[in-house]
């Protein structure tokens, strides 16, 4: 499977996750979000940016609890809960937000 972004083919796996993390662009994120029926807003970008920064440092997506705490610290307590994140990413912040951020899908008993 592949995603066509501005004339460039980006390869994805069976579930639509980018195979090459470095090919991710903001345009790609918008397309990936569309495939998930998520419309990107400022609030979505805040989460996506945090995920990519975290991944850069730790080579894995953060635990949901870590994500909610970080969002809470950065954007205010009312946003620091999983309900807020599920409103943004209804299929679950871990998997859906990772996909849009171009990160590999978290695996395991989650």
């Amino acid at each position, binding site marked *: 499977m592949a995603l066509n972004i501005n004339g460039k083919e980006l390869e994805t796996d069976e579930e639509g996750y980018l195979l090459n993390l470095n090919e991710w662009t903001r345009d790609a994120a918008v397309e990936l979000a569309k495939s998930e029926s998520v419309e990107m807003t400022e609030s979505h970008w805040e989460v996506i940016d945090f995920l990519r920064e975290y991944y850069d440092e730790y080579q894995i997506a*953060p635990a*949901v*609890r*870590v994500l909610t705490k970080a969002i809470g610290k950065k954007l205010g307590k009312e946003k620091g809960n999983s309900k807020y994140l599920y409103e943004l990413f209804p299929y679950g912040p871990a998997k859906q937000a990772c996909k849009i951020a171009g990160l590999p899908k978290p695996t*395991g*008993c*989650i």
Partner: protein
Amino acid sequence: MADFQVPEYREYPGAPIPLQEGATAHLKPFLAKPNHQEQLGFPGELVENWEEKAIAKMGDLLNRYRSLRVYMDACVKCGSCTDKCHYFQGTADPKNMPVARQDLMRSVYRRYFTLAGKYFPKLVGARDMTREVLDEWYSYFHQCSQCRRCSVFCPYGIDTAEISMAAREIMDSIGYGQKYCNEILGKLQTIGNNLGLPGKALESTLGEFEEEIEEDTGLPVKIPIDKVGADILLITPSADFFAEPHIDGLMGYAKVFHEAGVNWTLSSYASEAANFSMFIGSYDNLKVVAERIRKAALDLGVKRIIVGECGHAWRVAYSFWNTTAGIGSGGDEPYAQALQKQLDHNYPIPQHICEFIWDLIQKGKLRFDKSQTDWRTVTFHDSCNVARGSRMGNYPGGQFDIPRNVIKAVCNNYYDMDPDTIKEKTYCCGGGGGLLTDDLMEIRVKGALPRMEALNEVVKDHGVTHLAAICAICKAQFAKILPYYKFPMDMIVSTHQLVSEALVMTGSTQEEELDEE
């Protein structure tokens, strides 16, 4: 929400199910990629002469496991198992009857390994190993969560789980494995856990949890990692570091260890209790993974090994760690013997976290404020591999009583579900045995039907608000599928989350508030 129909509750439990042939014949999980296969020692893709090689592997397994041959021969088609499988109940597909699932392999067994099948295949329902058969195997052996409920009702004790494990091992051996299990097992063997969570990320995550506990209790509770010279090594599913409600369970263990004053540690090298090798029937991989835990135990010099809330891990720990790694009695290699000398045999080896805390509760060493959980009314979901594949305590049925005793010690409001759906007759959550993957969501939702029916009953009759579990798979599965049945996703809780809520730690803000009253 879904591109399939969520099953309706039936009029009453066990109501007859009108059959729908081929209802879930379209379901099959993603195939493992060549690199997922090869890192576990399997061929990358379907090999040439795979038919022959599959039969040769079946012969090998029949010789290795006498149980498998007995299961192939013993079935008398009495029909007792037919309606006992949650996947059959949820899909009405007759191929999901346990006997039909067994027959997928039995028909091939008869063709190649019995006299009658060799000469008169049609008369005895024997089939050649063909592409059609392989496709059917791949589909329906991944619609079995190896929960063993059917075997409880089989008068011969035929264990469909073992047949499904053997089938998956045969498929792996010819290069036709499942992505979910095999990719994860690869991460476990290279990085140390199913998530692929590297040491640095793990340390940072644990730091966040410590902070959260301190904010809550005012106490500097630690979650130590790689602490040489600790007495206890905790082996817990990596989902406890990542997912909800698992994380709350982990913080519960940390608080209990702190309150008990024991010297404990996690290991970044063996930061996983899960061992999916069992799901794919691979003894070789099971041993490799178990040996990681032995190495961590030897390197850290621990005296005890405790296992966190993980269903199949407890079966692996209880039944296979002894001979594969020398954790428990057994194992005759030098490393196994070294570990035997190092461990403290005054304690169970390995010990379940519920056994550990129940012991403390019985000795009166923990103080609880049960009013903290009064807003909840709780029921308990027995995990298949704990209920039917292992034990806790020192008497039969301890695995049913001990988790319930723990919950009742911290919650005033507790009700059991229908007796036909708990303890040794418990229903799978629907996501066990390597099926906890998005590509199998349809079977996961449908297979949860009997558990959801039983839950719905106690919700209606007793106002149950929460479902407690002791398994990472069960927790993740319920968090995902509860909303399909119109329950909130946070209805599922970790058992040690409840403990954590009621625990009054010495010197904590909770203690201070309570004593002021």
